[in-house]
Structure formats: C-alpha cells, structure tokens
C-alpha cells in the first residue's frame, strides 16, 4: 500500500513536470532555432570600401501622401502636400506655392516647373503662376516621373507602361520601349515604379524595372543603349521593380535608388557599379525607395517613410 502511495506521488510529479516543461517551451519567446531560416541580413551588409559618400545633413519634412523631389540652381524642389516648396540645402525654406493635391513628381528648367499628378501634369512659372495644364492621355494613367527634354516634356506612365512626350499641353508622341528587335518587349512595369531622367547631354534614360535594366532612348523612341544587372548582391538589382528611382550626375553617371532592401548607388553609363551612396542600414526598417536628385556631386534623397530629406556628399 505504501509503495502504491509513493508511486502515485512520483507519477503526479512527473505529470506536473511534463506539463510545466511543455508550457515553458510553447511560449512564443522561447522559440526554437528556425530550421528554415532565410536570413536576408547578409544582403544588407555592404563592404565599407564601396561606400564613397556620407550623409551630411537631414531636413525634416511633413509628408501627406505621395511626393516628388528635384533640384535646380543649387536648391531642392519638393512637391508634396499640395505645395511646391523650394528648400535650400541648409534646410531654409526659400519659397512656396500651392498646387493640386496628389503630386507624384516634379521637374524644373530655367523657365518652368512641371508638376506631375496621377493622370496629368501642370506647368508653372518659377513665380508660381500657372502656365498650362496638360491634356490627360488615358484613364489608366499612373504618372510616376517627369522631365524636361530639350523643348519638350516627357512623362513616364506606369499605368499604360509608356512614355509620353508633350509639346506644351499636347501629347505629340509616345515611346513603348519596343525597338523592333527580338529581345525588346516594351516596358515591364509590375508596380508603380517607373522612373526616367535626362542627363546634362539631354539624353533620356529610362528604367525598365521588370528586367532591372536602364535604357537610353532617342527622341524617335529608338533604343540607343541599355544595360541590365539582375542580381541579389550589391552589384545588381533584385525584386520586381528595381531600380525604383534614378537621377543623373553631371559627369553622366547614374544614381539609382532601390526598394525592399533600400540602398542608393552610383553606376557608370555602361552599368559598372562605381560606388554605394547609402547602404541599407541608413534607412533602418524602410522598404520604400527614396526618390533621388542631384545638386552637382551632392545626392539628395527623399525618404518618404521617415519623412526626411537626406543629403549625401562624397567623402574626402
């Protein structure tokens, strides 16, 4: 009888121990090592020798919705919150004027300021006076970028996957990105990231984001040169829509900005990686690409998630 009593006590203790152990092990914070872990942190590490720029300043901005950034005459032009703000690189607000809501992109030349919205764009004088409103081209339009190109204006439309060239407010031609070659299949735009930029030589560069390619087009819409870099490593672009943003340096090199693992880099016009401007750790937990612009050799990035304009200068 005594033995049975001891046995029952022992059994009870074992049951309690098993329940307690199971309870402790099933706590979420006591997680076991994930045998299927896919650690993408290694892609966030960048060789410091490649980083030739440093962040020298941050300008806090308040952003409601989408925004665009460009530069002119040494100043930053920000289209956001139904306004165009001209901001000095030291953060001073120089001037400001009202525009419509839903600004997506902005471009400036010595006469005008063009502001793109989802389905059309407006052109203003530097004084803020409205010059003209462009005619919409399609109900499906999703304008994502705008630039002055010689005496015309070119916009990138992610909705119809085309570039439209406007003379004043009238669309005069479109570029589909198909040049008659077997390898050319038009612009592949899986999401609303479709950027373009015009360099100092008035050459138009366009991102073909679905194939991680940068392409240069003539005014007639012919592909004159291109390169592509599809890779998960720092040398290339990955995902469905990278590089998401580009800008041109005075020497013809191209600044690229990527989403998902956000980073900013500089490539030569033939696709050689020259330097890393901002490695992913600059952007914390961001996933969106920063819109980029250049002021001489200085690179300006609009971080819409942290609501800050970041200014990067080349290291000594």
């Amino acid at each position, binding site marked *: 009888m005594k033995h049975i009593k001891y046995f029952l006590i022992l059994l009870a203790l074992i049951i309690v121990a098993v329940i307690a152990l199971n309870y402790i092990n099933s706590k979420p914070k006591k997680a076991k090592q994930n045998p299927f872990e896919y650690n993408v942190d290694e892609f966030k590490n960048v060789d410091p020798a490649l980083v030739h720029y440093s962040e020298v300043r941050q300008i806090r901005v308040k952003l409601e919705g989408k925004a665009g950034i460009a530069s002119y005459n040494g100043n930053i032009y920000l289209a956001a919150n139904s306004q165009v703000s001209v901001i000095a690189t030291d953060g001073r607000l120089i001037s400001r004027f009202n525009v419509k809501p839903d600004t997506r992109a902005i471009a400036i030349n010595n006469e005008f300021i063009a502001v793109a919205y989802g389905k059309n764009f407006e052109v203003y004088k530097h004084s803020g006076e409205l010059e003209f409103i462009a005619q919409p081209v399609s109900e499906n339009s999703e304008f994502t970028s705008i630039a002055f190109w010689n005496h015309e204006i070119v916009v990138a439309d992610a909705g119809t996957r085309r570039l439209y060239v406007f003379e004043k407010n009238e669309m005069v031609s479109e570029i589909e990105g198909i040049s008659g070659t077997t*390898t050319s299949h038009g612009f592949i735009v899986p999401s609303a990231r479709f950027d373009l930029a015009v360099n100092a030589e008035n050459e138009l560069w366009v991102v073909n984001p679905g194939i991680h390619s940068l392409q240069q087009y003539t005014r007639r819409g012919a592909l004159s040169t291109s390169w592509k870099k599809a890779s998960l490593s720092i040398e290339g672009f990955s995902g469905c829509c990278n590089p998401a943003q580009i800008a041109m340096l005075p020497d013809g090199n191209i600044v690229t900005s990527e989403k998902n693992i956000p980073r900013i880099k500089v490539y030569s016009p033939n696709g050689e990686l020259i330097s890393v401007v901002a490695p992913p750790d600059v952007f914390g937990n961001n996933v969106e690409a920063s819109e980029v612009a250049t002021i001489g050799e200085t690179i300006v990035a609009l971080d819409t998630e942290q609501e800050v304009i970041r200014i990067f200068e080349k290291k000594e």
Partner: protein
Amino acid sequence: MAKKNLNRRDFLNDTMRLTAAVAIGGLAGLTLRNAKAEKTVWQIDPFECTQCGRCATDCVLPISAVKCVHAYDLCGYCDLCGGYFKPGVIDLHTGAENHLCPTAAIERKFVEEPYFEYKIIDDLCIGCGKCVAGCTSFGNGSLHLQVRHDICVDCNDCAIAKVCPSQAFHRVPASRPYMIKGDFVANENPTWSNPA
C-alpha cells in the same frame, strides 16, 4: 400576514436553489449564444507573419496544414524571383541546386519573354515560409502563408497559434476563412478580429 421566521436551513436551501437556477439559466444562455454565433476558424494575417518557421514544425499534423499561397495579381512574374532562387545562383534555371525551397515545392514556368509563373505544389509545401521571406524581402510579397482549411483539423487550441511569435493567427468567420493578399487590407477588414 405573519412574518415567517427564516432559519439557517431554509436560508441555505433558498440560496442553493437560486444559485442552481442562475447557473442553469446562464448555461442555457451561453449555449444559445454559441449556437447562434458563426463558427470561426484559424487564419494567418500575412501582414503580421514573420516567417519564423513554426508553422512547419508545430502543427499537430505530420505535414503542416499551413501552406504557401500565391496572390498572382500581386506577382511581378520576375525572371529573378527572390522566393524561388537561392541567393548567388549563377544561371537562372530550374536545377535543384538553385531552389530556395527545401522541398522544391515551387514550379517555375516560362510564360513569355520576360515573364515566369511560379506555382506552389501543395503536396510538397510544408509551410516553412522560406519562399515568403525571399519574396517579401526582394519582391512584391505575393507569396504568403495561409492555413489550408481542406487540410486543417481545426483544433480549438491551435498548436501553431500558441507559439506564433508575432501573434499573426486570428479567428476568422468560417464563411470567409482566408486572408489572401490583395483581397483584403490589414486592419481594414471589419469581419475578423483577434479573440481576447
């Protein structure tokens, strides 16, 4: 009328009768409420999932009821798919050495230049979420995990939900048992809620 003296025995009897009546009434009410309430099932909010791997290891079934699903309308149909290819592949081909998925449960099919379609083979998928991590990190996040209700045995106390570190498991109405990306936006769907 003469006031009846209440002795201790009567008081205890009355109290017990009252307690029993309240208990039976409450039980009946609860039963009625449960009978009227819509049945709920477990589901993963893909916006909260962190691909911890426990869906693969903690389900009571030998092969997890959690599987990867593909929201095709979000997919970029990329050639270099972060959910399909291991990092550092030399050529983008379907050789086993290139697969990120530990069970080769994703089928890659050429559609037309430059598009490729990625299809989950349900029988092979173990719900580890490795492809989800790759797709979320590099792509549009069209691959995501869901509890498959044609496989799930609907445990009241889901073994995975209990250990989910991001508390991504929620009870959802059985009439709308899935949270497919693209069909709903996190925190804007009023038809499901986390039980207290």
